[in-house]
């Protein structure tokens, strides 16, 4: 899969931007509307996959992409675990939310305590992780050099 024609590349750039935005929107509004960290994260991964297909990045995948995605993935996981542990340290309850974090007024963007933060952590993790899976399955060599 080499890079595709100019038209495809330009359109993909636009589309990927919109996809990224939409993914971000879904992640941030996960506590108010359908969707959430997982759905948004998959959209982010889809945007990255589109770009890598259109620009032929798949063939020249280097260490960098893998390292970046694995760093993002681990940090997402750590962030999520950290949120759980925060409740544990502060109030002895793993995954404590109510009464500990700023709940805000219902139906506003900044509300729901740890829920939006958890959505962001999951979105980060899912986007990076699924992109890594795609690179591993779709890249043309077994590229996982150490």
């Amino acid at each position, binding site marked *: *899969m080499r890079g595709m024609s100019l038209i495809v590349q330009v359109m993909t750039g636009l589309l990927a931007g919109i996809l990224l935005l939409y993914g971000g929107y*879904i992640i941030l509004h*996960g*506590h*108010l*509307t*359908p*969707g*959430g960290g*997982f*759905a948004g994260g*998959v*959209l982010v*991964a*889809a945007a990255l*996959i589109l770009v890598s297909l259109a620009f032929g990045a798949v063939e020249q995948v280097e260490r960098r992409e*893998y390292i970046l995605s*694995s760093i993002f*993935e*681990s940090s*997402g*996981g750590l962030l*999520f*675990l950290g949120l*759980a542990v925060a409740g544990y340290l502060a109030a002895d309850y*793993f*995954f404590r*939310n*109510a009464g500990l974090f700023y*709940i*805000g007024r*219902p*139906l506003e963007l900044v*509300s*729901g*305590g*740890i*829920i939006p933060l*958890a*959505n962001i*952590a*999951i979105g980060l*993790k*899912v986007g990076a*992780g*699924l992109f*890594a*899976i*795609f690179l*591993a*399955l*779709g890249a*043309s*060599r*077994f*590229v*996982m*050099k*150490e």
Partner: protein
Amino acid sequence: MLELYLLLAVMLAAALVASETRNLLAAAVALGLVGFSVAIMFILAQAPDLAIVQIVVETLTVVFFTAVILRTTDVDTTVTQGLKMETAMFVAAFLAFGGLFLALIIGVLQEIPRFGEPVMRIAQEYVQLGLERTGAANIVSAIILDFRGYDTLGEATVLFTAVVGVLTVMRLASRKKPGEF
């Protein structure tokens, strides 16, 4: 509920196509059709969260299948033309088993509440507590990230495990001979 039945029929037909086609790419597309019918059924069952996730996941699944098939082969060489005796006997045996299983499960399904009338024993509490205690208007979000956030930690870990697993399986490596280390 007519549309639900139609979708169920489409789903089963697509599943049969996925099972019997000789072209693997076609099988992947048929699998996608099954997945998207499931997504639409989620919408009909008033589960928009599930529908969104199912749609994006289905797309990604088909992308994964396509990536693998494009890099390998798209012909299923094991599907042969014409009906062989062996296959026919297997199918007959499986149909008998399936019929038995269906008969059994019809009896069992009598005991669970009828379709469309769930018990909602703990669900009632989630609905009542959802918004005021967690601040999330989306009760499904409130459940997966607050009431049952621990499950979601597990879910994120499953995905993490799978990613590390895929990287492990696809790595360029093998065993060393004794004496090399």
